[in-house]
């Protein structure tokens, strides 16, 4: 386990290993190779952030660039999945879901049910989430709460290179449509990642830190902020249990509920906007199913109910910070 690679490399490696293992796995997206029809290098880009760079030559015919036609190519990935392939399609930013949502919401998510069980749609939609790159309102959203609302979809949100690789392999092998969310500020994160292929199962939260005082559930980049907050709190004698659900659909309810049974206090940290979000979803779950154990109000630490601002000073305020998490934990801890 000593090898350290980045989140970006972990995703790349998962793709390589699955494409090697299974010839029905194909990759598609805008400039996933790059340079189609152009005079210079083929495979010039490997996606806007270079995640798929190299696959084009390694797997001839299996990495498809696309016109800027998300409805068509995301739908094509879905149709191909229904016909026996295992496409991994890249929706460059999750913010672009607005131009192709129908294929995901009304086609992929519903085939199996509408068709009386007689369909299988093993498609993975890889997409970039989150704020922090000064990319402004249309390129900084989380939006996974919207997909989590939709029955028939699975939603995967890794926070570490290890989970990114294992969850992506699991996503590709899974037989249902999966929305795989990659936080743009995590690509450079390094971590231990085994070279061999492995899976991280869906619906199993990771308890990234154990503690008896307050349960903190966090997703994606917020897992790291929660850890930072927990470090600071530990120095003050407050012990957080930090849980990363890793998949929001299915959600590992048991791990969350058991933790709250122990701590009696819950803070949910979600970079999303607050309304009808994963933060409220988990709060609602616990208020229903672990009520007896609760000793304090459930705090939700989220972005505000505003679009993402461009200016760095504003964006830094927009994203939940370790300090805000710390304050929320302190509040629920001190609540009587």
């Amino acid at each position, binding site marked *: 386990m000593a090898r350290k690679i980045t989140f970006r490399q972990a995703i790349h490696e998962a793709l390589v290993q699955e494409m090697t293992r299974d010839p029905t796995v194909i990759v598609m997206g805008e400039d996933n190779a790059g340079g189609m029809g152009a005079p210079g290098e083929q495979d010039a880009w490997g996606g806007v952030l270079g995640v798929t760079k190299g696959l084009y030559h390694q797997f001839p015919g299996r990495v*498809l660039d696309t016109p800027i036609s998300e409805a068509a190519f995301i*739908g094509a990935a879905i*149709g*191909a999945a229904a016909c026996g392939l295992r496409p991994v399609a890249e929706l460059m930013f999750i913010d672009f879901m607005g131009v192709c949502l129908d294929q995901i919401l009304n086609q992929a998510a519903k*085939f199996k049910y509408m068709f*009386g069980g007689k369909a299988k749609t093993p498609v993975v939609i890889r997409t970039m989430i989150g704020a922090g790159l000064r990319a402004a309102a249309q390129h900084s959203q989380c939006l996974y709460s919207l997909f989590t609302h939709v029955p028939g979809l699975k939603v995967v949100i890794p926070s570490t290179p290890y989970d990114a690789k294992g969850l992506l392999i699991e996503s590709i092998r*899974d037989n249902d449509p999966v929305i795989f969310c990659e936080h743009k500020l995590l690509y450079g994160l390094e971590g231990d990642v085994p070279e061999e292929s492995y899976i991280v199962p869906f619906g199993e939260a990771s308890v990234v830190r154990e503690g008896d005082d307050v349960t903190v559930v966090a997703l994606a980049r917020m897992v790291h902020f929660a850890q930072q907050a927990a470090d600071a709190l530990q120095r003050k004698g407050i012990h957080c249990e930090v849980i990363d659900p890793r998949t929001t659909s299915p959600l590992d309810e048991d791990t969350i509920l058991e933790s709250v049974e122990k701590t009696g206090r819950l803070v949910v940290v979600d970079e999303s906007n607050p309304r009808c979000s994963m933060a409220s979803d988990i709060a609602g779950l616990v208020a229903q199913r672990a009520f007896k154990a609760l000793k304090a109000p459930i705090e939700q630490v989220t972005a505000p109910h505003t679009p993402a601002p461009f200016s760095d000073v504003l964006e830094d305020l927009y994203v939940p910070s370790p300090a805000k998490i710390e304050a929320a934990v302190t509040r629920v801890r001190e609540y009587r």
Partner: protein
Amino acid sequence: MLTKPQLLQAYTTMRTIREFEERLHTEFASGDIPGFVHLYAGEEAAATGVCMHLGDHDCIASTHRGHGHCIAKGMDVHAMMAEIWGKRTGVCHGKGGSMHVADLSIGMMGANGIVGGGGPLICGAALAAKRKGNKGVGVCFFGDGASNQGAIFEAMNLASVWQLPAIFVAENNGYAEATSSTWSVAGGSIADRASGCGMPGVQVDGFDFFAVYEAAGTAIRRAREGGGPSLIEVKFMRFFGHFEGDQQTYRAPGEVQKLRETSDCLRQFAARVTKSGEITWAELEQRDREARALIDEAVRRAKADPKPAAADLLTDVYVSY
């Protein structure tokens, strides 16, 4: 160039669709059928003329007006009827209904409640066929109204860029709900949109089975041989309203009656094959009777079939969860 068995097959398919739809029209009026039902009567030559060229490894994507496509693609009529009645024996176990009849095992990717929704999907089917190298094709049926959906345009362009074995069949039946296609399709011709997407486009008389059959044959052969996608615009008019219950006041008085008299694909087909001597009226009438019996039996069984069980509500959402 069609053999006698093929001609009889074409006629039987068209007649079965007609009987299916006429019967649904009656049954709907009696209040027995739940939900929205969009009938294909009048348009039989399109589904039949296209699907005669297809096998099980070829896929079609259909529309809200999907019964004809299903029958032409070989779906079991009782399973369809039971589905439309919301019965457990339905092809989708009663969970889909008229707008979602589907059977992937015969390459029928589903009727679709979303106008234009099938365009992207058929690109996927065609892509899968291309990768498998099985010479399969994907056919997307869509309406004149759907031709104005971005998804259809994007799919046509993508099919061309990827050189997919895909055929886009625009069923221009004159109306999208109450809106005339002469108004909604700027430029006036859906076929003319093909060149902007780098593919051939033709217009054919949709009341003429033979015209559709030939145009489809050309396009499908081209696709199978790696020649890429095509667009066929089929022009005709539907015999019923947009959905059952539609008062159709947007149509000219007597429009449908005149259509039924002068522009009926079944009558035209019958006249031609009997005139040429290829088939006798008696042979056709026998097919008529068989079709009627088939539908009678399908309706009878569908009515008697059991409804889904309560537990069915929660199944079939995921393969695993």
